C-alpha cells in the first residue's frame, strides 16, 4: 500500500512537472537558436559596414591641426604613441587596459584644396569575452570605441582651434 502511494505521488509530480519541463526545454531551444555562434571568420567578402564605422570625414580642416587633435585624444585616453609617419599620415599607439590594445590611425586626404580629410581608426583588441559570444561582443565594444573617439576628436579639434 505504501509503495503504491509513493508511486501515485511520483506520477502526480511527473504530471505536474511535465508542462514545466516542456516549457524549459522550449526556452533552452529558443535561447540556443537566438545565440547561434557566428560563422567562421572569412576574409571575403570584406565587411564595408565596419569600414564605415571606423571612418569619419572632416571638412575644411588643416592637416596639422587634425593630427594634433588626434594626438590629444590619444593622450586623453591613455594611449602611448609607438610610431608615426607623415606621408601617408599614420599614427600607431598602444595601451594596456584589460589586455593589450593597439590603435592605428590613418589620415587620408579627400580633397587637399578644400581641406577635406578622412580619418580611419582600427582598434586591435584582444578577445575579451570567452565562448561563443566573443565575436559579437568584441565588435560591439569596438563600434562604441570608434563612435566615442570621433565624438571626442570633433570636440577637441574645435576646442583647440577656439583657444588659438
Amino acid at each position, binding site marked *: 500500500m505504501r509503495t503504491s502511494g509513493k508511486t501515485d505521488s511520483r506520477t502526480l509530480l511527473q504530471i505536474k512537472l511535465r508542462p514545466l519541463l516542456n516549457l524549459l526545454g522550449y526556452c533552452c531551444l529558443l535561447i540556443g537558436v537566438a545565440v547561434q555562434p557566428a560563422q567562421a571568420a572569412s576574409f571575403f567578402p570584406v565587411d564595408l559596414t565596419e569600414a564605415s564605422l571606423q571612418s569619419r570625414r572632416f571638412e575644411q580642416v588643416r592637416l*596639422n591641426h587634425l593630427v*594634433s587633435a588626434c594626438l590629444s585624444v590619444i*593622450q586623453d*585616453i*591613455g594611449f602611448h604613441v609607438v610610431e608615426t609617419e607623415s606621408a601617408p599620415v599614420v*599614427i600607431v599607439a598602444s595601451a594596456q587596459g584589460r589586455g593589450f590594445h593597439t590603435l592605428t590611425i590613418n589620415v587620408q586626404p579627400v580633397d587637399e584644396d578644400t581641406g577635406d580629410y578622412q580619418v580611419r581608426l582600427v582598434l586591435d583588441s584582444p578577445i*575579451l569575452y570567452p565562448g561563443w*559570444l566573443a565575436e559579437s561582443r568584441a565588435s*560591439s565594444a569596438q563600434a562604441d570605441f570608434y563612435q566615442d573617439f570621433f565624438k571626442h576628436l570633433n570636440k577637441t579639434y574645435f576646442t583647440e582651434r577656439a583657444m588659438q
Partner: protein
Amino acid sequence: MKLHLLVLSLWVTAGCSTQQPRGPDFFAAQDQFAANRVIQITRFEGVEYDAMLGHVVESLLDLDCTLQETSKQFGVISARGGGRRYSGNLAMAHRYWAGCAGHKVTVTVTEATAGQLVVRATFFPPNPEADKTFQLLIERSIAQARAGEAS
C-alpha cells in the same frame, strides 16, 4: 512553491550569465580629461619649436628613458622608461625623481599662439610626480640653454 523558486533562480542565473560584460571603456573618465590636461600641460614663451623638441629629448634622457618615436612634423616624442631603478642612497643622491622604469611617456609639442608653445607629457601608468619632475627638467634645460646663450 519550491518549484517556483527553483525556476526563478534558474531564470535569474541564466539572465546574469548572459549579461554582456563591458569592454575596456577608454572614455569612461572623460569628465577628468580637461583636469588632467591642466596638470600635464606646460606653456613656454620665447622658445623656438625645434629647440623645444631638443629640450624634451634632453629631459626624457635625464629621466633615464629610451626614445621610441620622434616626429618633428607632428611634434611627437615618445619614450619608455629605462631598466634602472634608483633606491636607497643612490635615490637620495639623484637629484630628481628617477622612477621612470616601467613607464611609457608620450610628449607632444604644439604651437598655441605665435611664440607660445604647449608641451604636454602623458605618463603611463599615470604619475603626478613624473608630471612635475618632467616639467621641472624642461624648465631646467631651457634655463641652462638661456644661461649658455647669455654667457
